[in-house]
């Protein structure tokens, strides 16, 4: 898999087209906003999205784990969409998950969607510190470098008379935001008010995710 090299907080990270981030020095894989079971949650509202998202997201994760064999997997929030979404995880999936936890240390940081949910055998945290890096769902006030999720950033690109939207990794000097790893999840423009309030509008490094390549733009 091709990756894009990203320098953040004097460390090297690899951004993958499957929307995961890899910290090679510590053999740590980072994903965000999986929103497992979103379809179930919508079905409660009689909006019947195809019920395959859980299976697909888990498969995506398993493929990554098989390939990279990381020591740590950090989920920076919103692993599950809501209380009911755990229903969509089949027993077999739980068994598979627990197989992976033998070799990989799962670090589940709670997001706004899954803060009240527990899964047996899964440790969870409100945030997690490694050296000068803080992993958290939403950025907080700190002097540390932060790696977070929550916003599902995407970028609008206008070029040669065409407009496209692409899911993106984005960071400024201190804060890094991951795209959503989920299947049926939407996105928020990196220049929207919500994201600008966190990152500002200047000196953003933006990494749009293509078919099988992550691109790199530094926009002023």
């Amino acid at each position: 898999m091709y990756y894009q090299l990203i320098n953040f907080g004097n460390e090297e990270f690899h951004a993958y087209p499957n929307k995961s981030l890899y910290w090679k020095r510590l053999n740590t894989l980072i994903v965000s906003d999986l929103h497992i079971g979103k379809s179930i949650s919508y079905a409660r509202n009689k909006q019947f999205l195809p019920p395959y998202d859980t299976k697909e997201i888990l498969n995506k994760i398993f493929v990554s784990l098989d390939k990279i064999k990381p020591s740590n997997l950090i989920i920076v929030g919103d692993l599950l969409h809501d209380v009911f979404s755990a229903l969509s995880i089949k027993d077999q999936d739980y068994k598979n998950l627990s197989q992976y936890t033998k070799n990989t240390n799962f670090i589940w940081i709670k997001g706004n969607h899954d803060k009240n949910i527990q899964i047996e055998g899964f440790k969870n945290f409100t945030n997690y510190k490694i050296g000068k890096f803080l992993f958290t769902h939403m950025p907080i006030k700190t002097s540390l470098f932060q790696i977070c999720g929550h916003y599902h950033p995407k970028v609008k690109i206008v070029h040669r008379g065409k407009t496209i939207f692409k899911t993106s990794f984005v960071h400024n000097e201190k804060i890094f935001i991951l795209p959503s790893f989920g299947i049926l999840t939407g996105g928020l423009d990196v220049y929207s008010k919500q994201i600008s309030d966190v990152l500002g509008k200047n000196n953003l490094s933006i990494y749009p995710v293509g078919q099988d390549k992550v691109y790199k733009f530094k926009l002023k």
Partner: protein
Amino acid sequence: MQTFHHVRTGSDVVVFAPTGAGKTLTGFINPIDDLIKFKKFKGLHTLYISPLKSLANDIVRNLEKPFKELDLNISFQVRTGDTTQYKKQKQKQKPPNILITTPESLALLNSYENAKEFFHNLKYIIIDEIHTFLDNKRADLLSLNIERLQTFSPNLQRIGLSATLKNKQDAKKWLCRKKPKIVSYENSVLPKIKILESKERIPWSGHMATYSINEIYKEIMKSKLTIIFVNTRAQAEYMFKNLWLINKKKLKIAVHHGSLEKNLRLKVENNLSKGLVDCVVATSSLELGLDYGDVEKIIQVGAPKGINRLLQRVGRSNHNLNTPSKAILVPTNRFEFIEAKAAIEEIKKNNLDKIDLKEGSFDVVAQHIFATACAGQFDINDLYKEIIKAYPYKKLKLNDFKQLINLIQDGGYVLKNYDQFKRIFQLRENKNIYKLVNRRETRKYRMNVGTIIENPMLKIKLGTKTLGNIEEVFIQNLSQGDSFIFAGQVLEFQSMKNNLVQVKRSKSLISKIPSYSGGRMPLSTNLANSVRALLAKSNMWESYPEQITEWLKRQKNISKIPKKDEYLVEQFPRKKNFYTVIYTFAGWHANQTLGFLLLRGFKELNYKPLGFVANDYAIVLWSLKEVKEIKTILNLGLLDKHLDNYLEETSIVKRLFRDNAIISCLIERRLPGIEKTGKQVLFSSDLIYTVLKKNEPDHILLKSSYEDAKKNMIDYDRLREILKKIDKKIILNKLTCISPLAVPIILEINRENLSKKETDEYILEDLENEILKEANVLSIN
């Protein structure tokens, strides 16, 4: 009187009459006669269905005067999306004798719990302008609801009112059940149509008629009131702007199209009927029904595309039977000249276009099932029997119907994940009876009723005034400070907030014109045949303008003019590439499809094709290598082999899936209290499509979208017909350079032919390269 007699003796009738013959009133004669005899008839007696809200209002206005003068004690009211809640409530408690409404409002009425009570005494249903209802999803919806009314009131009689049609029998089959009858009035006075005699050079290609603007202006001055019809909204804005630039006499000119705010449109319509303007530039938005008595002249700018359409437009002038309508056609390029000429010939011969009846769409049935559930519990066998009485659904399979029931129940997925979240459920004591889980669901149905799905639109605000709606895609391509033309004004884009586009007036001379993706009409088969026939008639050429005559003569000398049933293929080298031009006259949709299929075919044979462009008349493909075996690949095999691929790569099915998902109420365009932005709907339907395609390729909505694509977007049947016989009728002509006939389409080569997926990657890569070049650094990967 014929109509009156047939209806009185119990027949369902379709009445055909040219515009201006007063057919609207024809429909009311029997109901009024009945109502007078009955004296105080209690409840709803007659339902009148109109294709447009504005037309419904117009009917009411036209009934008011005679009813008052004759002192008839008959109540009549209008009910559309614009009717207030209060009025609607009152109508339900105390129905008028005659209710004038639209197909969508009828569907809503049928979804109420007391629908049966409301309609059980209904005697007549009148469908006005039924020719606009025959070949689309609105027709499907209407047909299902008519059958429902028939169930409620078995004695119901149907009366259809139509413009003149070629296949009258089809309209009869669609509507009539009881002793079907046709009544037909022919046009006694033929319209006077001519082509603008221009002293200017008619362009090779393009669609804007800039060359003739001064001559058009002179024509406007000559008449009291003129409507200029154009084919697209962009053309309307452009024509309007160009007329203003030369408007030295300060004529009152207005513009009218479907994206303008309702009040602006009403103002134009009002001024038009009072004769307060000199000219209105309009799209199909002014085509139907409404009676503007004083219009003296119609100018059609651009190709007529079809005979029926041209007649409908021409009929807007001198809206009565005794004086002929007057019209001038302005071709915007050379092929359109031939097309205009052919259209005039066909109108003289009264050779109209056929309207092809199509099999009904699945998504509309799904919506209807939901509506039925809203009205109360139902037996699926009864519902199925009722649905297959409707003409478009005669062939609906029970199995497909059951899948549609499942779709409404829980999304219809193979994985049974949503058992606990159903929308409708089977009664335990009787498995055939289904019931809505919750009355709250009715609100969801009612906010999503209908089959017309617009592209995502944003409101344009000038100060606090709303000017109309513009496609979201267009606005996305603008930056702050860019100017564009809308509602005839040059506007500067300022900001976009909450689906509102804020603009201010601009004095900029450079401005864009929004394009609207919908509504590209292909050339009708009938007119296409006529164009081919006319092209081959070389004895006619001398009567054409010199430049057209010259063009055709040179084509004859350098290459060939195809005979009526021949398909000319020209091949020539140009610059470093090899060109193949095929003159199919198959219309834009079919040609677009064929172009793609050939691109695939060429690739397989290793001709290294680079791209293609299609228009209504022809296709051009260019490749690196000489194409040697055109005759062997142009056949049905091509269609069977590459069609799926085509639908996939061009995202045609994906786009239609969005409409299908919305119409079938799988996803909602509106939720009570929250309006989803267009973007959000588009986004989630694309995701659903991708996930379904991967996990459940047989899902009923994918099937439905695929069928829709075949019916509407790619002209499958037409292409099939052509490919069946084309190989024996190809006239292959190898040339050393481009032929005169090929010039127009070669000039159209500048569009991109990449699929969306490819385009996205291309834009990203291109932008990245540019940035890297600027920054003078090397790629990191």
